[in-house]
């Protein structure tokens, strides 16, 4: 692959991240009740307030002093301390929620990408066929439903009703001490929310892949492949699929970038201790440092996955490389 292409894309990503950091700084300082809130505590004397301001560096001008300090601490990985989780560094609070979210949404994405793309490709290739009528119908239904709408009936039937799975959370407190038991416990908690998120994502991927394949089918090189006497399966695998995949790359990358944001409604419905639940908690508590940390993490993740998309795109499409 072209080195100049890589370097250019990498530079673009770094500039974007820098812009995001500055934007976050401006955004959170422009919001009502921002950092200054502490120093306006009416129970404090003006002298105490001034001392407090000086302690947090709020007596200095916004630009450049505060901005420089903000960038400096952000770059060194200091995102401040959470208000809701008193005294705990934001990085720790966020870090604890990242794992559960990646486990749930990341795994869901992985399954949905494989199943969704295959389902969409088959549906589009044999438009009106059995796979298309069943698969595309189901995909439309699941795609149009928010995750919690898929999740709630699952809870009612398989958790509250049949009692096969726990209704909420990721672990049963004090359930098991041995590692195998713990893994099984988490797996049991994972089944229902994972099913919900995977079904929704399969719907999205298969619908997009279906239309990409239908578009590709009409291309002249597919007629050439048919004229070559290749089997239908080979034409799909070697000619239609690799081309139809190209428009999917960006979409997949954007989706993966947002994995870290969690599936908010789904996590709340299942009380899953991930970033989605944490975001809601931070919003309710007006925990600005925590929100700021979450936003920064999500934005950086989106940018990095877009960068990855550019690389993957370059690998899949020779036209991009030159």
């Amino acid at each position: 692959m072209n080195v100049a292409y890589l370097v250019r894309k990498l530079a673009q990503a770094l500039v974007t991240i820098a812009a995001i950091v500055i934007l976050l700084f401006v955004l959170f300082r422009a919001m009502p009740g921002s950092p200054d809130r502490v120093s306006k505590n009416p129970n404090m004397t003006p002298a105490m307030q001034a001392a407090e301001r000086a302690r947090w560096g709020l007596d200095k001008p916004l630009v450049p002093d505060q901005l420089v300090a903000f960038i400096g601490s952000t770059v060194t990985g200091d995102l401040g301390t959470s208000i809701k989780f008193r005294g705990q560094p934001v990085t720790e609070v966020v870090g604890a929620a990242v794992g559960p979210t990646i486990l749930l949404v990341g795994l869901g994405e992985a399954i949905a990408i494989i199943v969704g793309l295959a389902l969409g490709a088959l549906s589009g290739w044999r438009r009106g066929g059995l796979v298309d009528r069943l698969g595309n119908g189901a995909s439309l239904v699941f795609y149009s439903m928010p995750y919690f709408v898929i999740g709630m009936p699952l809870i009612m039937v398989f958790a509250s009703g049949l009692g096969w799975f726990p209704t909420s959370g990721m672990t049963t407190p004090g359930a098991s001490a041995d590692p195998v038991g713990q893994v099984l416990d988490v797996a049991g908690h994972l089944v229902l929310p994972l099913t919900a998120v995977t079904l929704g994502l399969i719907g999205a991927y298969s619908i997009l892949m279906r239309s990409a394949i239908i578009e590709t089918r009409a291309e002249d090189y597919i007629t050439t492949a048919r004229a070559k006497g290749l089997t239908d399966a080979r034409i799909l695998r070697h000619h239609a699929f690799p081309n139809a995949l190209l428009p999917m790359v960006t979409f997949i990358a954007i989706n993966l970038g947002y994995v870290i944001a969690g599936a908010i409604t789904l996590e709340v419905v299942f009380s899953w201790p991930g970033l989605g639940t944490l975001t809601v908690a931070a919003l309710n508590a007006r925990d600005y440092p925590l929100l700021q940390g979450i936003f920064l993490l999500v934005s950086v993740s989106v940018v990095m996955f877009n960068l990855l998309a550019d690389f993957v795109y370059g690998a899949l499409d020779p036209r991009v490389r030159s």
Partner: protein
Amino acid sequence: MTTEVRGRLGRLLPDGADPTAPLLEVRDLAVRFRTPSGASVRAVGGMSFRLDAGEAMGIAGESGCGKTTTALSLVHLLPGTGRVSAGSVKLFGIDLVPLTERQLARYRWREISMVFQGAMNALNPVQRVGDQIAEPIEVRLGQSRDASRKRAGELLELVGIPRQRASAYPHELSGGMRQRAMIAMALACDPAVVIGDEPTTALDVMVQAQILQLLERLRRELGLSLLLITHDLSVIAETCDRVMVMYAGRVAEEGPVSRVFTAPRHPYTVKLLSSFPDIRTGRRALSMIPGSPPDLRTPPPGCLFAPRCEHAMPVCAVETPPEINSDDGVRVACHLFTAGDAVRRDAASEVKA
């Protein structure tokens, strides 16, 4: 046990091949398309022609007259909405029309291959051209990957592309190079018939001439049998032995290029030739053919060209003209040439004048 029949270069022909049959013989071929509104378009309505081994035949006619449809229908490559509704397509005497997709796969590319217009879209943009050329050799002829790659390299050299370029992607080649690569691909399985559908149309004049020279050379060296579709009559004049002029999905006139281009009989051929820049002098001609082809959803009775024909007679609006074969090998479908009518023959001599 069926006897083995060997064709060009001693290759084994498919079971049931008749060594005495013409290479390709199409009879009364008709093709219909379903339209979204539910109507049916008769894109090709009863075409007959034959192509002998080593021969090059040009197919000419205005846009929409059914040239591409005819070519695609030979090995069932029509889009899902189209189907052959009547007639036969006999290759070595074997009728391809009733064959299933699976049976037909045997004939695609190995016997009938194609070079499409604008190879940019006809080649897979994300696959190396060498791999695209090697694919039918490996998949259809069952050769090893290495042997197929090697053969692909030879084919590239044959069409004038250095074999190192096998690793190039289509967009890395110029338009002329892509068309050469497409020709190399068409030759991959040493087919009995190569169909070129406007193989030079998208190219500039210089490159066009080079591609035509290449086709000429390949014909001479490999003894190709060629069906060349183009609305550029000068291309046919330069490359083909015979020409078939189509109008609204039917044959208007067909015969040796030397006869048809110097003494056209069908009023449509006359118009078509005069609407073209002179083949020898390159002078731009002025006359256009007034009117437009008929709506093939509801084809009128009689001769389809009659509404645009200066020589139309009452019978033309009623009866489909029969195809008249004359002694010099020209076939024409026009009431002016229906035998035994002095008045019509007078009119005919007017056309020639």
